[in-house]
């Protein structure tokens, strides 16, 4: 007989059962809320063959599994977020008993409360900047008339310099966009730029920024982002949101 565990999606405050009624947990299991000291832990039952240590090691290597669990996790977090402040957990946070959940809520009570205070009435926005694919197409690349060795070296040096300048420009734009947006919001983080093999995007990602924005200031935040994009036509700027505060409900100050 398979053993069961409890998958913890999020810790929240004031979860309304109505907000969760339409949502289901992983494998269509019902969601339940374990309330403890004013914190609501949103859980569903999972099979430990799948979500135990051994199962997770195997399954985390499986993109289809990973996608299904990530999407399922996100759907629950989004549903919980309808009610109010939410601190989403990392993927596959599994407990073997309700006492285990309560114990962890006790242990981290202060930090969880602080995290929920930080994200209440706010959402995460993502702003990415991409440098053009070939930032440094050499302006003059004569393929005919090889010329002297000295010419070749001069040309080579000029190309290297041009490439360097374009890269510097791209990084400077990323810094400017990030610094300007960071000044517009409550908190910000620079996540690691994503690998084009995963995203399929063109060009080098120079900024993968996450911004925690007050809901009533979201309009002016996106306006500033749009202005920054217009001021820096060399790069492509992508703005997405609002998302649950995934990058900011951390237990340490981000």
């Amino acid at each position, binding site marked *: 007989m398979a053993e069961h565990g409890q998958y913890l999606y999020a810790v929240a405050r004031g979860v309304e059962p109505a907000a969760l009624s339409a949502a289901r947990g992983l494998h269509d299991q019902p969601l339940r809320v374990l309330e403890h000291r004013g914190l609501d832990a949103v859980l569903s039952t999972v099979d430990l063959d799948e979500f135990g*240590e051994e199962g997770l090691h195997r399954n985390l290597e499986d993109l289809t599994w990973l996608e299904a669990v990530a999407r399922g996790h996100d759907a629950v977090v989004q549903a919980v977020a309808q009610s109010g402040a939410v601190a989403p957990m990392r993927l596959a946070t599994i407990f073997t008993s309700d006492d285990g959940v309560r114990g962890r809520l006790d242990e981290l009570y202060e930090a969880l409360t602080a995290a929920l205070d930080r994200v209440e009435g706010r959402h995460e926005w993502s702003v990415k900047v991409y440098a053009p694919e070939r930032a440094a197409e050499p302006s003059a690349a004569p393929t005919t008339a090889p010329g002297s060795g000295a010419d070749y070296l001069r040309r080579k040096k000029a190309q290297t310099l041009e490439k360097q300048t374009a890269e510097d420009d791209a990084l400077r734009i990323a810094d400017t966009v990030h610094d300007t947006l960071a000044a517009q919001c409550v908190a910000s983080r620079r996540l690691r730029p994503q690998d084009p*093999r995963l995203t399929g995007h063109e060009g080098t990602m120079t900024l993968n920024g996450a911004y925690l924005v007050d809901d009533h200031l979201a309009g002016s935040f996106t306006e500033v982002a749009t202005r920054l994009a217009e001021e820096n036509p060399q790069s492509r700027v992508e703005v997405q949101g609002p998302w649950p505060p995934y990058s900011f409900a951390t237990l340490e100050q981000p």
Partner: protein
Amino acid sequence: MTEVETRSEPQGQISLVDLLDRLLGTGVVLAGDVVISLAGVDLVGVRLHALITSVRAEMRADGRDR
């Protein structure tokens, strides 16, 4: 050429890569009873592995068809 993409669906549909960035990397670190390091999950490796697996499956399917 200025390109601004602003997507703000009410439901905030997040791309898988963005989601995994957050769910594996930056989400609340609250250890459950099952302890496993997510830092070791190599997404590029997982992605390439998935691609290879699906290509192999297609090749097998093609083989059967002929």
